């Protein structure tokens, strides 16, 4: 019913406009006015409207700036963020000035030089001096912008210092997982083929390689089981299912061959790197320490995501098959930021900022910045093995099942620095 009414209203509206237009055309005809002759009255009206529009536009721009400021996300909470915010403000001032100036010239001239009876336009085809001015002035301003910008950029993208804590952020549809480098401050190696429920980040150790091979070969969907099924004369499959299983089997055989190669090349001395890594559950809060530099290593399991920390002014894509990095130093604790924002519920956050699927908009991780003492306490609880609180300790050595004794043995065997080992892939 409502749809019908809406339809009728629309049709009546169109008819009404058509009638108005006809009347307008008839009256033009009576006054002998052609459509392309713009009467002075209309012309002036539009010139005035252009000026009025400019003022209204400027007023709303100023209102928006005063209401929402240069940054609706609060002040920067990282060391480099403070510097880039300064630069952002400088740039915003420059472009806002240019915006007001050139729009004023445009609308101002458009208003002032509306056609007036008897006044001819001024013949002014070119002027080399003027053109030089507005080539050189923007060039100089841009040079300043470029130099300041590249200085910041070089600082931001420089290598992290040795003391920077190494953290990995692992992304997948649709959550984030944190891994910290542990006491040796080196992240263990990984290979995506080692992924399983116990080893979601695919860390590379002698044991995880063996387990991956085992499960590829012997699990209920493994190679042997598949072969058995396919060769069983009593089982009959639909052709599509059969083709799928053959394909699956082929893939698994190829992958397992690569796993054997991995095993052959693997240097067990490297296991130690992974063993002390602290591996959190997916979506576990990321804890950071104020005034401590971090080097973030980003990985993705499936599609491209982007690690976006709006408050730290940090963003870096996570790319499957490749590790990307970004370093920064948080400079304001969560508590301090809550005070500054006078918002007791405020929290830092990591959001996904690259379209990655249906729940892209929900893919976030909470971030907490602690002061040094609080951070130390928290770190001890997740890194030190305390039998009474085993579920809190998240080192790989502790959480990776069954392999504990063997892993411990490996560790003692390779107390020498692992860095000297040859990195094989």
């Amino acid at each position, binding site marked *: 019913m409502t749809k019908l009414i809406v339809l009728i209203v629309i049709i009546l509206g169109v008819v009404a406009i058509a009638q108005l237009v006809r009347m307008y055309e008839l009256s033009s005809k009576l006054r002998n006015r052609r459509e392309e002759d713009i009467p002075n009255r209309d012309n002036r009206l539009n010139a005035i409207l252009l000026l009025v529009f400019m003022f209204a536009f400027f007023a709303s721009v100023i209102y928006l700036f005063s209401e929402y400021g240069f940054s609706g996300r609060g002040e920067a909470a990282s060391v480099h963020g403070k510097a880039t915010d300064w630069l952002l403000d400088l740039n915003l001032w420059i472009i806002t000035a240019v915006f007001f100036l050139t729009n004023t010239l445009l609308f101002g001239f458009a208003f002032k030089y509306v056609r007036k009876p008897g006044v001819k336009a001024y013949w002014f085809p070119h002027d080399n001096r003027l053109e030089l001015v507005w080539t050189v002035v923007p*060039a100089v301003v841009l040079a300043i912008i470029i130099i300041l910008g590249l200085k910041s950029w070089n600082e931001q993208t420089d290598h992290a210092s040795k003391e920077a804590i190494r953290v990995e952020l692992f992304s997948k549809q649709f959550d984030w997982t944190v891994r910290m480098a542990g006491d040796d401050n080196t992240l263990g190696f990984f290979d995506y083929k080692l992924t399983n429920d116990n080893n979601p980040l695919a860390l590379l150790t002698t044991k995880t390689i063996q387990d991956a091979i085992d499960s590829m070969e012997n699990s209920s969907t493994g190679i042997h089981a598949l072969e058995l099924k396919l060769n069983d004369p009593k089982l009959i499959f639909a052709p599509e299912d059969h083709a799928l299983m053959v394909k699956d089997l082929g893939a698994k055989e190829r992958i397992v061959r690569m796993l054997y190669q991995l095993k052959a090349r693997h240097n067990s001395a490297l296991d130690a790197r992974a063993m002390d890594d602290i591996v959190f559950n997916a979506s576990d809060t990321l804890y950071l320490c104020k005034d401590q530099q971090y080097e973030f290593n980003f990985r993705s399991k499936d599609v491209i995501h982007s690690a976006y920390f709006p408050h730290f002014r940090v963003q870096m894509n996570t790319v499957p*098959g490749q590790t990307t990095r970004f370093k920064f130093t948080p400079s304001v604790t969560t508590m301090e930021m809550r005070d500054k924002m006078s918002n007791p519920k405020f929290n830092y956050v990591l959001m996904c900022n690259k379209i990655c699927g249906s729940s892209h908009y929900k893919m976030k991780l909470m971030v907490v910045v602690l002061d040094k003492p609080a951070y130390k306490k928290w770190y001890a609880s997740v890194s030190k093995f305390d039998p009474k609180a085993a579920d809190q300790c998240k080192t790989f050595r502790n959480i990776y099942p069954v392999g504990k004794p063997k892993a411990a043995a490996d560790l003692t065997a390779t107390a020498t620095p692992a860095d000297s080992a040859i990195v094989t892939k």
Partner: protein
Amino acid sequence: MAAHEAHAHHDTHGHDHHEEGFISKYIFSQDHKMIGKQFLLTAVFMGVVAMLLSILFRIQLAWPGEPSDFLSFFLGETWAPGGVLKENMYLGLVTIHGTIMVFFLLTGGLSGTFSNLLIPLQIGARDMASGLLNMMSYWMFLISSLIMLFSLFIETGPASSGWTVYPPLSALPQAIEGSGLGMTLWLISMSIFIASSLLGSLNYIVTVLNLRTKGMKMTRMPLTIWAFFVTAVLGVLSFPVLLSAALLLMMDRLAGTSFYLSDIIIGSEMLENHGGSPLLFQHLFWFLGHPEVYIVLLPALGLTSEIISTNSRKPIFGYRAMIGSILAIGFLSFIVWGHHMFVTGMNPFLGSVFVFTTLLIAIPSAVKVFNYITTIWRGSNIYTPAMLFSVGLVSTFITGGVTGIILADSALDISVHDTYFVVAHFHIVMGMSAVFGMFAGVYHWFPKMYGRMLNTRLGYAHFWVTIVGAYGVFFPMHFVGLAGAPRRYYDYSVFGDFNTNSHEMIMDLNMIITVFAIIAAFGQLIFLFNFFYSIYRGPKAVQNPWRSNTLEWTTPVEHVHGNWPGAIPEVHRWPYDYSKPGAEEDFIPQIVPLRAGEEGDH
């Protein structure tokens, strides 16, 4: 000469004896004017669809999760159960909206319409170099449009990985439903589109280089032609790269290759692909993608150069500097693509190079703006709707251009990349400017296309609603972005979990934006009405309604094959002799010979 006359003779005869059939006149036409109109109508239709899609997803952004009759009316139970948009369909709508707007409305539509209409008319040619290729170009455009539209109706939904279709998301149907059949159709449609665009562009280039009439030196061509010419060159050099990117993506999807894929586990399936790089796709995509924004923009700038000069009754200021900046922009646009990739893990040093080249582009752009302003200065400005839209274009080009300086500065881009700040930037500088240029062109050349005039008053109403509405939509988006709101988000409720202040602000602005979007959309109805009404009932046009200098206004109002019934006129001067001292009239058409002692070109 004799040949021309024979041709003219033949023309008049043709009309006497065998009336052209409907089919060969309107459908399989090889006449550039008709093909231009076909492009325009198709693009207007596509534009309306894309606008409607944007209203649909804007409703979700302003009133997330609230049932809407409007949504359920258009999307039904499958895509909007109970009137609430589905997450996947949100992404599908955004993707197809962006794709249609950029490629079908503003590449096919803008350059297809006006290059076809104006190149032969303004350089003094009887038609395009190859009418057949031209016709094929339109037909491929239409087919690709239909495939793109059709993909909205399939069961798994249209392509949903954004108009940039980055793999692996776009390569793996397991990652998102739209990457199945929808993505296949997207790739097919775009491949056909690219072929269409290439045929068109080659034709434009050849025509401009070879078919100029006597006296039409390159430095006497209207700036429209310069813009179309450089646009076509950009298209020919960059679209093939997109085609190769699309083909490689198709191979990854269908043939199991690993150009873009490496070490992926999707769901619980371990893929064997190893060694590919998603960044490769991004490099290939943006090697087209950035020139593409100038492919969209340059024709609009060309049209407005002509319109502003005509309606200010003044020569365009700095004609040679305008040509120079078109060429500079065209050249630079090929070496800036990396500014879309500052945070993708690309080598930071490479990033700094792209910062430098990108900021260089601001210089020719600034030159253009100042030249427009100086043209208006001390002019005798006449505000036809076309002129208003041109002034609007200069304003949006400034407003959107200045924020580009922030995005080009890699150190600053980090905090606003992929947020609504970017959405604001490109809609204003590319969307609004190009659409304004397109409207300006339609109002100005409508008499040439249809032999009738558009209604001026409705034109005014259309302009004022559009500029207020569009700025109202896109300006506040800057602040949404500065508050840290990522783009391509189905809703912003996550902000409620960590910063209630930002959340409130984003919600307020989103509501305002949607209201303006609805107003702007209604404004377009005025245009549609005016357009279709005037095609049939508008007042008849005279030959040269705007008292303009260029050659198209020397052709008869009724379209004839070959454009000029007699000989092709010869050109004696540049096209911008407006209000020249010593002349009686305030315009001197290009076909008027120089008076004794008159100084010629400038």
